């Protein structure tokens, strides 16, 4: 089984973030593997580990990211967890891509991997904790023309090689669904799907020197005009930090705290 896991390198959630000239500014030393993508890596590793030994040996978990070179950090983290191979697609023309540009490049890279040998499954996290659009998995499925099984709280794959089915359970807005599709398919998993493992010490040591394959748009045959700022369908015209909230009015409860709270709400017309 060949599983491609799309991961993103994101600014640390505790770090300050902002905009400059319509683009998100991030500092290289503050990035991490998007926490929610650890669930995607974990899901892929578990599927591989559940295979019969002979098939497991020929199976591969390939981590794929579209980003600048600093994103190798995210790939290395995936190596520490047990990913077999890492690919980063970098190109100056990609900067400023919107959801569509990103999905287009990811899809082209998956297609190239599928040209080498069939790809059975593409797994992603439910959202990137920086942009939080949560739409790249759906777009990736549309680009690849593969069934989408997104926001899975539970993922199971069964059947024989070449005729496998993925089944997901998901719970959204008070609706519980069980969905099924033949592989290959695009799956996104939520943080309910599993508990990501801790990095493995031996793999940590090995990951330091493990190469990350770097591909360019030319390698993928993607027209640079269709991605990046030139290909974007919306453009940021204004970005401004919100004024900091004034300090909170703080009341220490000495028996009247609830009354003070209610009076604050009444005074401010909030009831």
């Amino acid at each position, binding site marked *: 089984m060949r599983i491609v896991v799309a991961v993103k390198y994101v600014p640390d959630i505790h770090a300050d973030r902002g905009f400059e000239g319509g683009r998100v500014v991030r500092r290289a030393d503050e990035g991490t593997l998007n926490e929610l993508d650890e669930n995607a890596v974990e899901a892929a590793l578990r599927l591989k580990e559940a295979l019969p030994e002979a098939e497991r040996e020929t199976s591969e978990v390939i981590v794929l990211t579209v980003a600048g070179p600093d994103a190798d950090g995210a790939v290395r983290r995936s190596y520490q967890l047990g990913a077999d191979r890492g690919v980063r697609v970098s190109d100056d023309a990609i900067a400023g891509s919107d959801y569509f540009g990103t999905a287009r490049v990811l899809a082209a890279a998956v297609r190239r991997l599928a040209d080498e040998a069939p790809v059975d499954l593409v797994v992603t996290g439910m959202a990137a904790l920086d942009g939080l659009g949560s739409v790249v998995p759906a*777009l990736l499925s549309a680009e690849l023309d*593969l069934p989408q099984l997104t926001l899975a709280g539970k993922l199971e794959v069964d059947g024989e090689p070449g005729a496998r089915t993925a089944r997901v359970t998901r719970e959204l807005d008070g609706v519980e669904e069980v969905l099924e599709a033949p592989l290959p398919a695009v799956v996104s998993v939520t943080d309910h799907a599993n508990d990501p493992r801790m990095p493995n010490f031996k793999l940590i040591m090995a990951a330091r020197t493990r190469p990350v394959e770097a591909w360019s748009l030319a390698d993928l045959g993607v027209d640079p005009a269709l991605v990046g700022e030139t290909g974007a369908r919306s453009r*940021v015209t204004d970005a401004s930090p919100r004024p900091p909230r004034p300090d909170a009015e703080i009341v*220490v409860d000495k028996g009247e705290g609830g009354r003070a709270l209610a009076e604050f709400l009444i005074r401010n017309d909030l009831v």
Partner: protein
Amino acid sequence: MSTPGTRTVLVLLDSAGTELRSPVLELITVGRSLGRVEAVALEAPSVDVLAQLGAYGVALVRQAEPSSGGEVVTGDALHLTPVVAEVLAAATRASDADAVLLTSSFPNKEAAARLAFLTEAGLVIDASALTDGGTHLVADKRVFAGSWDVRSEIVTDPAVLTLRANSVVPQPAEVAVATEVGALRLELSPAATATRVVSRTVDESAGAGRPALGEAAIVVAGGRGTNGDFGPVTELADALGAAVGATRDAVYEGWHDQFVGQTGVTVAPRLYIGAGVSGAPHHRGGMQASQVIVAVNNDPECPLFEISDFAVVGDLADVLPQAAEVLREHRSSQG
């Protein structure tokens, strides 16, 4: 490209079979400020829905009748994201829409993305406002846990947007109209139905009698500090007519069913009250855009205080019931 006030805006009706909830009425209200609004329904609109649409000035609702391989698609399969997207794409073409609006649920975000893919439209997820910039539509959005405001122009026609609940106050039209139902027939692509719905269960009891968490104007959330007793949280929520939310930790403990945050439900109500909630970044990301933030916590150093307008240092088991009682008294004194 059309001039302001003359755009055609398409609105996806969630739950057309029962009644339209506030977020959908907000979409129609925003749509009317741009021009003519048409609606799309996946199921037959109820009498109540038709009356609501009429009051909101929507003259036409297109009821989808998709087929696949010549067979009419009904039931659970209608809710598959690719199916919703292809229905909306057909409606976009039929009405030559300039903008398509959906509420900001996870399934709708994905349907919006696929619709934008099919129609080569620009997409804004979780917008808080939409205006006509003349040449282009302009969307506002709050990002980075509510700490930045970003405005963007959608340079394509059509534009696809999901709009956050509580972005505007729903307003009926000045003049009501009689709403017509038109059939929207389309043949789905084979890929749209490649996923099979094994089962689909709608939990009707979730939030019974209370506003839905993602849509409510007031949210009371409980965290680990409740120690498993959500009684004080629901008591205050009832006194305020509020929705009840939780932190992820509280949901994982099994104390409540829905959590607010980056991986849970995003809320931006007029008033958010967090009780026994520390205010971790993952939680803040889902509530920081609330207009007024109130925190109740026995730890004076709790991070939620940093973004609060009003805070009580105290035990929530004492503070919340007292607040609820004062509010109930206030309400009855108001008649």
